[in-house]
């Protein structure tokens, strides 16, 4: 089991993040849950990139075994893109707050009920 503890943590984080997204009514908190979910995916990718005994994929003398650079590249861009999309979501939350006067899901749904 010790070989897998990284992945177990990933699963745990993913589930917690998803739970927050589903169960919490506050939109800001939903976004934080989304962020946790996102980070669990990052950690997953980076974990698969790690090679035991390897070192960071920047060429130095005397090192033969490097970790896998490809997942790192994917995650690097994903982090920056993630913050960009997250800020888009936050902007939407601001607009929702302005339109409905609340960021609680139940209140918003209440107002949206067809007359």
């Amino acid at each position, binding site marked *: 089991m010790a070989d897998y503890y990284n992945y177990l943590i990933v699963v745990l984080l993913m589930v917690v993040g998803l739970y927050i997204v589903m169960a919490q009514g506050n939109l800001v908190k939903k976004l934080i849950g989304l962020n946790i979910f996102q980070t669990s995916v990052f950690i997953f990718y980076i974990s698969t990139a790690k090679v035991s005994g390897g*070192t*960071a994929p*920047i060429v130095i003398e005397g090192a033969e075994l490097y970790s896998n650079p490809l997942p790192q590249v994917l995650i690097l861009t994903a982090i920056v893109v993630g913050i960009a999309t997250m800020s888009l979501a936050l902007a939407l939350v601001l607009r929702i707050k302005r339109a409905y006067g609340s960021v609680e899901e139940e209140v918003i749904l209440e107002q949206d009920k067809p007359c």
Partner: protein
Amino acid sequence: MILTAVAIALIVVMAMAIARALLGPTIYDRILAVNLFGTKTVLLIAVVSYIVGRPDFLDVALIYALINFISVIAVLRFFEYGSGKVHDEVGKDA
């Protein structure tokens, strides 16, 4: 060897900081814990980069030192700005 000991001490203190951030009765306790955590992370990264023999990682420690400071300032700024509404004696004159 000594480096490892220092790293372990740092990790223990980081755990303490997390505990304080979770417990923290006031908001300032949490900010303090975050700040403490950040500084310890800087040191931890510096120490770890020597343990694994890759001094390139020092760049990361450097940016941590910066980001940590900035986030503390940001938190204080927004907290004070926000508290102008909550406590209503600061900055109400606008």
